[in-house]
């Protein structure tokens, strides 16, 4: 028996899940609910998992080369790493947007105050 237990026929549901997610992502992209720029890494990882599920023998060889005894462990590790990377990417984007949002809020408040002052001056003059 191979050190990595290959049960190729059991991986097709995994491929279906990846495919459904890919289609969902494409739908969101077409409806412009998400941007391509932000979802390209997600698409990349989904594509990678889809390939892993469609070609389990090749995936098994890679897993064996990396020292995994059970293929599912390799896939779990891969999924956790992918999610961690995607989360980190989202965190960077979110932090940047938060900082920008704070500055915009401040700018808006300062502009409103200037506008109020200008209007008051106009009213006094008028």
């Amino acid at each position, binding site marked *: 028996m191979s050190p990595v237990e290959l049960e190729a026929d059991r991986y097709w549901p995994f491929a279906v899940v990846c495919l459904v997610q890919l289609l969902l992502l494409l739908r969101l992209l077409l409806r412009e609910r998400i941007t391509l720029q932000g979802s390209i890494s997600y698409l990349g990882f989904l594509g990678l998992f889809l390939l892993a599920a469609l070609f389990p023998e090749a995936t098994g060889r890679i897993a064996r080369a990396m020292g995994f005894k059970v293929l599912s462990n390799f896939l779990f590790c891969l999924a956790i790493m992918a999610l961690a990377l995607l989360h980190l990417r989202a965190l960077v984007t979110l932090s940047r947007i938060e900082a920008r949002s704070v500055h915009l*809020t401040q700018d808006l*408040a*300062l502009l409103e105050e200037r506008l109020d002052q200008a209007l008051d001056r106009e009213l006094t003059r008028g």
Partner: protein
Amino acid sequence: MQRLLIVIPALNEQEALRALIDEVLRVRAELPCACEVVVVDDGSTDSTVGVAEKSGVRVVRLCRNLGIGGAVQTGLRLAYREGFDYAVQVDGDGQHPPSEIARLLDRLRVLPPPDMVVGSRRLELRGYQSTPARRLGQLWLRVWLYLVCRLRVTDPTSGFRLYGPKALALFQQTYAYDFPEPESLAVACAGGLRVVEQSVEMRQRQGGRSSIAGLTSVYYMIKVTLAVALAYLRNGKRSRTLQPAAIPCA
């Protein structure tokens, strides 16, 4: 004549604000500079804005709550943009007696003039001294600031501060949004600002509620401890490319 902006950050401070603004307006006439007063409303849900507007001072309304740091930075940005020479932060809860602003301004006469004067209630132990638990937290922050930045301060959490032109230029760019006081000292030190303390008297808050209580105080200590180290490293690197090396602080 030099111009001073008195910045009052306020979040749901309707109880304390009216008396505080009246006090500030009385004190303003006695200060040796041209003063303007601005209340920065940090998204209050009570009548803070109404109270401030009725008092006739300038009011900047933030459309959402940014935290005390975001509100203070708004005031500092206003001071910087409009060419004020100095800005002083007076908290909207009434803890900082406006009569002590003159003492902060006096400290500017020391040569070379400091870039930032921090009002300290611990130098002469005058007035309200806060709870023992908070003093323990302050002690840790004093030690930590010394270890990280070689900065000696007695009251690292004091928000009663006078900012000079260099401090305004620095803080209008970078200022922590929540629990900003100790972190901003690290930023100032890394940015090469000369920071000094001046003994002041403080009072108990005159209304409203503190944002640091219960579990938040644990989060506060962890967050501020990390933030001080990160701010010093981050801004030290930035200032090495933009400004001369950090000046040891008094």
